[in-house]
């Protein structure tokens, strides 16, 4: 695979000749490499740059990240200014781009446009935060279990099974209801606490495969210590599947936050979040559907972008799965 991408035939030779040339170029003992050195990651990047799915999702995610970081760049309105007298459930004014009344006002007379912008931060923070924690914890547990095997593996794998057995929403319900004030970090910790098992399993599986590889034995035979083998030789090779699972799961965590907030057990006021807005829009669904639709659409777009992004990354890192 790397050879194929490494040498792109530019002249109009036949396919056979082209492959022969590619094989030749990789076999020659003399002279510099036919192309620039290419690692798995630069190869993946090479693929990604040409993937429209990746480009679209990356642009969307970039915009979302900018909104999350600097919502005030896009609006002067505050998400907490409530004006019930003038704006109670005011309908959207679709032609007023980027103005506070673009998406109308909610049941408290607050600008939905402003709330949607300010709500991005909570959702993105939950998604990214949970993913980072889950990846760190899952990789650590999976690597230790996979590499050391024996009783370490038995212990950690059973622990993973126990956590895997807890239904995600039910578990989150139980944990979150025990908190009075649920801020972003509480939701992040709760979701990470329940979500690390998938990564742990993936990491364990790929570490078990990789630890039998000859280059690990060779590293051992040349005097590498256990920690060095784990960090320098096993981890970089096990990383690809972990990253794939993590990016795809990221969208799921954002959806989970929205779900929990909608059920009233996720984030709570005064935190501004899409889930909170969807939840409070329930009561006026018939006479003011826009209050519900706008934040829901934002959740959908965000989850979709991260799923597409994860898919593109998976295709680039593991072409066989395509």
């Amino acid at each position: 695979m790397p050879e194929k991408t490494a040498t792109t035939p530019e002249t109009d030779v036949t396919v056979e000749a082209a492959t022969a040339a590619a094989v030749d170029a990789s076999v020659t003992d003399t002279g510099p490499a036919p192309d620039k050195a290419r690692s798995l990651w630069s190869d993946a990047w090479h693929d990604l740059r040409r993937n429209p799915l990746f480009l679209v999702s990356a642009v969307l995610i970039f915009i979302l990240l900018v909104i999350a970081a600097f919502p005030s760049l896009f609006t002067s309105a505050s998400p907490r200014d409530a004006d019930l007298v003038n704006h109670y459930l005011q309908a959207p004014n679709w032609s007023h781009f980027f103005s506070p009344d673009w998406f109308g006002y909610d049941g408290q007379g607050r600008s939905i446009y402003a709330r949607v912008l300010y709500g991005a931060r909570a959702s993105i923070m939950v998604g990214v935060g949970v993913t980072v924690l889950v990846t760190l914890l899952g990789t650590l547990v999976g690597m230790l279990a996979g590499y050391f095997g024996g009783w370490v593996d038995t212990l950690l794998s059973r622990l993973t099974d126990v956590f895997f057995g807890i239904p995600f929403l039910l578990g989150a319900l139980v944990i979150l209801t025990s908190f009075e004030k649920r801020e972003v970090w509480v939701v992040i910790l709760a979701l990470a606490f329940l979500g690390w098992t998938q990564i742990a399993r993936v990491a364990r599986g790929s570490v078990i495969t990789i630890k039998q590889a000859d280059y690990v034995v060779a590293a051992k035979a040349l005097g590498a210590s256990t920690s060095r083998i784990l960090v320098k030789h096993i981890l970089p090779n096990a990383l690809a599947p972990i990253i794939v699972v993590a990016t795809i799961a990221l969208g799921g965590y954002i959806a989970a936050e929205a779900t929990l907030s909608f059920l009233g057990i996720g984030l709570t006021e005064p935190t501004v979040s899409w889930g909170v807005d969807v939840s409070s829009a329930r009561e006026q669904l018939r006479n003011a559907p826009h209050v519900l639709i706008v934040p829901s659409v934002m959740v959908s777009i965000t989850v979709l972008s991260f799923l597409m992004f994860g898919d593109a990354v998976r295709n680039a890192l593991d072409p066989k799965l395509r």
Partner: protein
Amino acid sequence: MTIIDKAAEAPAPRGAGENGHPLLQVRDLHVEFHTRDGVAKAVNGVNYTVDAGETLAVLGESGSGKSVTAQAIMGILDMPPGRIPKGEILFRGEDMLTMSSDERRRLRGRKIAMIFQDALSSLNPVLSVGYQLGEMFRVHQGLSKKDAKAKAIELMDRVKIPAARARVNDYPHQFSGGMRQRIMIAMALALEPDLIIADEPTTALDVTVQAQVMELLAELQREYNMGLILITHDLGVVADVADKIAVMYAGRIVETAPVHELYKRPAHPYTRGLLDSIPRLDQKGQELYAIKGLPPNLTRIPTGCAFNPRCPKADDLCRTEIPALAPVTEQDGSELPGRGSACHFWKETIHG
């Protein structure tokens, strides 16, 4: 185990190294694997000695225990299922089997290094070769990244990789088979160890490259005056490089000899069978000889001589009594130094 004691005496070590101890001495080594079908006895009392500057070729077919012995020496045997019930591996007189795992790790790479059969799978695919070569210096000698890279380039030049400077950041898949094996050799040589174990270093290469790689290995070995254990199943590979040969069968050494004598006059029917099964131009048109039967199942090694079910000379004695590795002599009784055969009928085999 009387055989072992005799065997230990038979092929006397050729000159001792520093402080009176040979570089590496394997004594009565046993390795077994506990499997679901019982205990597989992979190595059953192996003895050999390697001195500085000396090349020992260990010859044998798959499953004869030659690689397992090497893994036991390196300390990279998977334990469990592997187990070393008895034996000693003396490196400069010190038993490595009784060392702590940390002490052993410090020997690996610095004093003893290994070259593997398949260089592509033995190099980490996600790290550049320069990084992997440099790692030896960074880890063992604490060099900086920059110095380590310079050393890596120097090493690549040393093993005759063209345009080393330009290729130091390339990844293993960008090199050809022969070049990759050179990189493996460079890694093993990096810290100028005293002993190198090469486990079928040329098996995965094509014939034209085999000779180059063997030559390089032999040249570097002379230059650094290292001991070399060359594990192979290819009689052609060892002829030019090795000083002495140990032929293994079913976990035992069945014959030892200086390299050219073995080819001229084998003293064990198994060795004879191996030599006869090499295709020869002057026997064109005739049927090629093959040792009949299959190597024994290591969980059920035949009683007596392990080779007896396949041996053309076997009789009742061979089926009951294990032959010791006894010294081989000329017909008139004069000594043949370094020669030994574990066959009840070695006299008939060598002189008949």
